[in-house]
């Protein structure tokens, strides 16, 4: 019980430090907010154009409302995916700041172990990021529901929640592996700047990944965050796409749905072949487990001061 209290005290402290810093919360949401603004300004049109081109010969079989909801779903996927990168990163900055200020001396001079200290940073970042991204997703789904019909079952919502959790754990593990080596907040902030700029492109939030060359696509599709995005995209917009496909009634032999899936990357495309969704899921889990394993090997070298 006492041991558990130590760990829960650490987790609570780390979460409080993050959520009481309004600046951190704001910057963690900056990329998703920028994405939303860009969408309102011009991105929506960019996404709608291939859709309208593909449906030009199908007459009125596909309603503009469905197309709108599909594109809105793509935007929400992008917002969730970028949030899954920037929020865990910002939450983990508590660890970097503690190291810079030697605040963690206060922890390691108490009966809590160094393993519990590092575990507390991980769990706190996962919990705060998960709650924050779930709130973002809930708001997004609410907006979709207000805007039109949403083709999502309860199981889809549960699966999306599961994917958000997996994405949070995966991003936190990978970032933690990197951030354990960062000693100053200035370095961390510089990396955050790069992450904010790059994340939207990497997950295909600004431009569909299919627009990039094959080499870049290969690299992007190997990034776990992109893989999570693909799974979320399937769950979040798959229902609308199926509904549109059903409305076409097989007149195009499924070509519309297939081309949408290809354009908006519904499957990981790595070295000339498409991965099944299960393979993508397995890949994310493997990378996450490897990252957690690497953290547990590396942390004693950093936190057991020599």
């Amino acid at each position: 019980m006492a041991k558990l209290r130590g760990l829960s005290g650490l987790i609570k402290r780390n979460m409080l430090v993050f959520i009481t810093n309004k600046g951190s919360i704001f910057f963690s949401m900056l990329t998703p907010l920028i994405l939303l603004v860009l969408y309102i300004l011009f991105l929506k049109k960019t996404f709608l154009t291939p859709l309208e081109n593909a449906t030009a010969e199908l007459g009125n079989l596909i309603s503009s409302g469905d197309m709108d909801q599909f594109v809105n779903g793509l935007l929400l996927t992008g917002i969730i995916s970028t949030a899954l990168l920037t929020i865990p990163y910002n939450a983990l900055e508590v660890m970097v700041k503690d190291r810079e200020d030697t605040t963690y001396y206060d922890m390691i001079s108490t009966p809590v172990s160094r393993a519990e200290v590092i575990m507390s940073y991980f769990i706190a970042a996962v919990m705060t990021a998960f709650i924050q991204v779930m709130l973002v997703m809930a708001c997004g789904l609410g907006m979709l529901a207000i805007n039109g019909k949403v083709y999502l079952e309860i199981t889809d919502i549960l699966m999306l929640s599961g994917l958000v959790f997996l994405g949070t754990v995966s991003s936190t593990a990978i970032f933690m592996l990197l951030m354990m080596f960062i000693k100053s907040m200035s370095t961390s902030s510089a990396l955050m700047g790069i992450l904010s700029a790059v994340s939207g492109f990497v997950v295909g939030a600004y431009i569909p990944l299919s627009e990039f060359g094959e080499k870049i696509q290969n690299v992007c599709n190997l990034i776990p965050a992109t893989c999570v995005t693909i799974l979320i995209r399937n769950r979040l917009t798959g229902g609308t796409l199926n509904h549109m496909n059903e409305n076409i009634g097989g007149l195009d032999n499924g070509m519309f749905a297939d081309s949408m899936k290809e354009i908006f990357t519904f499957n990981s495309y790595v070295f000339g072949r498409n991965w099944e969704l299960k393979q993508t899921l397995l890949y994310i889990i493997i990378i996450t487990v490897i990252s957690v394993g690497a953290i547990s090997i590396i942390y004693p070298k950093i936190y057991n001061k020599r």
Partner: protein
Amino acid sequence: MIKAIEVNNLKKMYGDMTAVNKITFDVKRGELFAFLGENGAGKSTTINMLSTILTKTSGEALIMGKELGKEDDAIRKEIGIVFQNSVLDKKLTVKQNLLTRGAYYGFGKKDITERLDDFWEEFNLKEIWNRKYENLSGGQRRRVDIARALLHKPSILFLDEPTTGLDPMSRKMVWDYINHLRKEEKLTIFLTTHYMEETAEADNVVIMDKGSIIAEGSPAELKSRYTAKKLIWYTDACDRHRQIIEQANVSKYKYEADHYNISMDSGITEFVWNNRDIIKDFEIIKGTMDDVFLALTGKEMVGANG
């Protein structure tokens, strides 16, 4: 008397650089032990080793009979530390800070509030309980730092330059708490400081320079060993007076404004008595800890008397 801390040939090296060089000393239970030295002398490194934050390179240390490096968990329950730079979270309230820190020791909210009852009034915690740490004055912050270090009823309190940067009033307040803890709670206090006058209250003083102990003893012993008494003789400067001084056992003298400042290794009382016809207005001043440090290292302490 049973020893609270026994240190034998303790050494700390960073690569080729020796931070602490085979130091040996004891601290008795219930004593106020002062560690004196300039910045970089090795004081904080020693505290960090004794509090299990840093690993020792060689040597042995027993903290309340527990062996450093082998019984670190047990040692951590016996010690409380007030760090040089506060390690509490600025954005959190005093309540949040103390409750989360108490959990590190396995205490629940009830245990912590019961413990805080012991110094609730003494530390005036009520008025600042729900205030953010960053909004407290320097003195109030130090009060909370000390309360945090005492949450788990440690046997030894390490105070690493607890009054650095505080105004004179806050310094006095902090010292009132320290004296209270020492006299009422019978706590062993291990203090590092570079304020000379703060060592006057100590039972024992160790002076460090460049990682090594250069002197050790009670303030009175150190003063009598390393400093000469001074006779301040208020009179006019004249050849006759100079002649009298030069004939006596005087190590050095000089005339300043309206008095002679005369340093004598011994025989000061006899000198005054023998010349009582002409010495009408005088005072005898014992050497200060500043003089001790100056005599030992040939340099004045930075921040002395400050």
